[in-house]
């Protein structure tokens, strides 16, 4: 089994890696590139803890081969803050205690950011359905949904 050479952009940085043909993007990120912010909660696309963006679209990195990343722009939780400046969603999650254990948080933030880029004024129902693929077992989702909607409102006001 020969390894595949892949050239991609991760969080804006051009990145090259070698991977096995059957290796997932999640395993590449975590085990080869040290980007352990994306988590594996299920490996079947049912929990969303491994959410990343590919050309701005949110996907489960456990259901994508590393080889498929060739030529695409990958965004992970590690690229969400700009330097020491947190993304407004990250700020709001902290202020509103929208996390407990924190294992689902990276995936939820990545998915929520994609939501606000796609729809700057989501309703509660739209927010809940958009995030339905991100399981959280601690919070009951209440504070997460509020934090996403409050961030959307702040961002609309600021723009």
């Amino acid at each position: 089994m020969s390894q595949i050479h892949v050239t991609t952009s991760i969080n804006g940085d051009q990145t090259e890696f070698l991977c096995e043909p059957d290796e997932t993007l999640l395993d590449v990120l975590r085990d080869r590139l040290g980007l352990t912010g994306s988590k594996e909660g299920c490996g079947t696309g049912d929990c969303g803890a491994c959410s990343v963006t590919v050309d701005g679209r949110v996907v489960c990195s456990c259901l994508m081969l590393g080889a498929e990343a060739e030529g695409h722009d990958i965004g992970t939780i590690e690229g969400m803050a700009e330097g020491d400046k947190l993304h407004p969603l990250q700020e709001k999650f902290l202020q509103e205690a929208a996390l407990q254990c924190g294992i689902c948080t990276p995936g939820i933030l990545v998915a929520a950011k994609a939501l606000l880029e796609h729809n700057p004024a989501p309703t509660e129902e739209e927010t809940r359905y958009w995030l339905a693929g991100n399981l959280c077992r601690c919070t009951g989702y209440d504070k997460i949904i509020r934090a996403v909607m409050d961030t959307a409102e702040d961002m609309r006001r600021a723009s």
Partner: protein
Amino acid sequence: MRYEAPTTVDAAVEFLASQSGDCHMLAGGTDLLVKLRSEMIEPDAILDIKRIEGMKDITAENGGWRIGAAVSGAEMNEHEALCAAWPGVVEAVGLIGSTQIQGRATLAGNLCNGSPAADSVPAMLAADAIVRIAGPGGVRDVPVGEIPEGPGKTSLKANEFIASIFLPERPARSSDAYLRFIPRTEMDIAVVGCGVSLQLDESGKVARARVALGAVGPKVTLVPEAATAIEGSTLDDAAQAALTAACTSAASPIDDKRGTIAFRKHVAGVLGRRAAKIAFERAGGAA
């Protein structure tokens, strides 16, 4: 294992012909990767079709729409004209999995996976979709109903793959709808699925209908009795009752972890009735 991502149909067909072992097609990968990781399959090669020209395109053709095999559910849902023409098919695709799954999952993949519970298949069957298959002898078109053969089984040959799916021109005063039942509001496999496509005549009666059921038998099937039950009606109570009974009677499900026989038969009728009402209203029908 090999991973190949050709850029032309010919190259893909050639690669398939060169493979003696187990080769799997990769479009969105949302079923394939699950099987791969759970060790249900151990392929010798994976053929990624996403870089093949046209595979990511939605194109107008003869009044209808051709959807490339690698077009994701999210891309379909963002295509306004497609949504307007075939709202039932698009909503069925949109129900597959999460936002994340929608970013990758495809109509063609949902069909190829061969699941009797595939959400988009009843909708496509009701829509009379035509599947374009690429293989060693070039391309051939077949009605979507000829693809599923049983759980996990399709009529595709080992050296063939789906290149695109064609949704025909939408006639006047017609529309479609798809509903499924799941225990939660998202993230489940359909316990029952029902697609209805219908056309009204000038008086507002159902002129022609197609009703398809999923997850209530070994493969997605058309229920002609259900269509007959509402043709010629304005979907009045009697027609709805007849449709409900036809769907319930046509369903031949099994008991499993997702539902019982009695439940599935009953809900097949409920969904048939509800989906027909939605399609009827979308087509401009008045109750």
